[in-house]
């Protein structure tokens, strides 16, 4: 086997194990699912009230708006929207040394594990939330192979941007004992700017402009817009390209920061 094939194999095995581990948390998954659904239905009700008699707001029908609340609730677990601190925990406990003792690429190691976790979450919580929505409401559904393919690509890209961003934020732990507080602040910021709380279209242009200078919309808002079909073909391609650029940029920055962090760790001894 070539070296590349071996790395792929390790990646797949790590993801698989992480996937199974996530599935094994039955009670947690069920509790999460119940909460996501409850708040989803609540948010849908608020949307309906806000729309009132209006049929459409900036290109989104009331049906799209309801669907929007479903999608955002569905990606909470998939993208760890409420925060992810596993990596910084290993820095603070010193358990990171166990990972550094293994001959593997540290970034792809976490990436594989997060992918497994994300896919299991999508299956157990994301898809289930959407199914419940489909039963309760008349929701928007992507039409045709093209839109489904675009949605899948966008979801995958959204995860990649989200993961590399979360990875980067966790690296703060190499430099400060307060990485947890910093990450809370950053995650809270992302709720607003990613389009998690409200579709970004609803905000004034200047604010949306600022949001698009950050990676946050590439995590959620783009997925929503591709799903409900408010973008034309050209728009979809541009949106996917923007996601890919954010992912590439964040991965690159993570590598640089990671190298500096590990250098600091092995010199100062954690």
């Amino acid at each position, binding site marked *: 086997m070539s070296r590349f094939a*071996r790395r792929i194999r390790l990646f797949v095995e*790590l993801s698989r*194990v992480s996937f199974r581990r996530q599935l094994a948390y039955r009670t947690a998954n069920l509790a999460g699912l119940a909460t996501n659904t409850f708040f989803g239905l609540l948010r849908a009700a608020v949307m309906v009230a806000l729309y009132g008699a209006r049929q459409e707001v900036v290109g989104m029908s009331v049906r799209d708006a309801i669907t929007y609340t479903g999608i955002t609730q569905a990606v909470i677990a998939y993208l760890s929207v409420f925060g992810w601190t596993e990596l910084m925990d290993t820095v603070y406990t010193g358990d990171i040394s*166990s990972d*550094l003792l293994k001959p*593997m690429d540290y970034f792809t190691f976490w990436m594989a594990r997060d992918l497994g976790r994300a896919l299991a979450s999508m299956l157990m919580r994301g898809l289930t939330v959407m199914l419940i929505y489909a039963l309760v409401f008349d929701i928007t559904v992507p039409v045709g192979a093209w839109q489904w393919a675009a949605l899948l690509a966008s979801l995958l890209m959204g995860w990649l941007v989200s993961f590399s961003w979360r990875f980067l934020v966790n690296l703060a732990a190499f430099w400060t004992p307060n990485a947890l507080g910093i990450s809370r602040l950053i995650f809270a910021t992302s709720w607003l700017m990613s389009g998690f709380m409200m579709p970004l279209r609803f905000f004034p242009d200047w604010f949306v402009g600022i949001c698009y200078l950050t990676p946050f919309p590439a995590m959620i808002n783009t997925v929503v817009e591709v799903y409900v079909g408010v973008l034309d073909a050209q728009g979809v391609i541009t949106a996917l390209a923007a996601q890919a650029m954010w992912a590439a940029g964040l991965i690159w920055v993570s590598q640089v920061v990671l190298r500096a962090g590990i250098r600091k760790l092995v010199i100062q001894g954690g």
Partner: protein
Amino acid sequence: MAPIIKVENLHKHFKVARHRRGFLGAFRGLVSREYETVRAVDGISFEIGRGELVGYIGPNGAGKSTTIKILAGLLVPTGGTVIVNGRVPWRERKSHVATIGAVFGQRTTLWWDLPVIESLELLQYVYDVPPERFRRNLAEFREMLELDQFLETPVRSLSLGQRMRADLCAAMLHDPMLLFLDEPTIGLDVVAKERIRQFIRRINRERGTTIILTTHDLSDVEKLCERVMIIDHGRLLFDGELSELRNRFGGEREMVVYFDQEYDEVAVDGAEVVSRNGKRVTYRFDGHEITASELIGRISARHRIRDLSVREADIEDLVRKIYEGRLLEAPDAG
């Protein structure tokens, strides 16, 4: 043959922020921090040959773990040179760690919430062990370490002894030529300790794995190692054969004798009566001057002995003697 580990004048100094007392101190601490330098490793040199099983002992805070972390590539030293198996560990960390195994007593290298077997099987891909080889090793270690009863248990639910056995297995599955064990028996009961010692001995004898074992439990070393290095305050106090250490500092032995009846006069030439309790008398003697059997002969020539036992001065006593500087002038602590 070239040594597998070569360490020369190794230093590792940590900068630790000094806490100031009182309100003003705390305030000044915000503005400018004062640092204190801890010399965890303070000029150590040694070589270790292939297949050796070396005991690296010393009290808490002596610098044992720091040395091991440097050898494992997890720490960059402040000064000195280290070559392990032809590599500078921290420069080529990834290729270096592929060839070593390491167990740090107080933490596991296994995944906390996975069943033991899943963690172990992942290692096949982490270290890229050929499947056939991996099966064979796993089967062998399962038997040697008696892992079967808890293979399906998540690591977090294991007892300390079980976890240590699983960790030893994990450290050996990829056939490392070097094994670092940092306090592998810490916190274990006698039975668990013994099982782990047996494993260490077998690995060293049967596979020729070079092993460095740190411990502050001196019976580990007594039972396992021929060569001992004693470290304190970051400096080597002794590096040599266990028997040499005994000879130089450990001539003193004790013999407890149970007589048939209480005798008035129990003193003999060549030994000193340390304590006396009815029929039970404890003698102390110098092993270099008189052998235990000579002493028994002298005593039994005058009295009837029912039972006796001889206690070897344990290394703990020896180390204390070295620390007290009575028998070795300790280098000035910097």
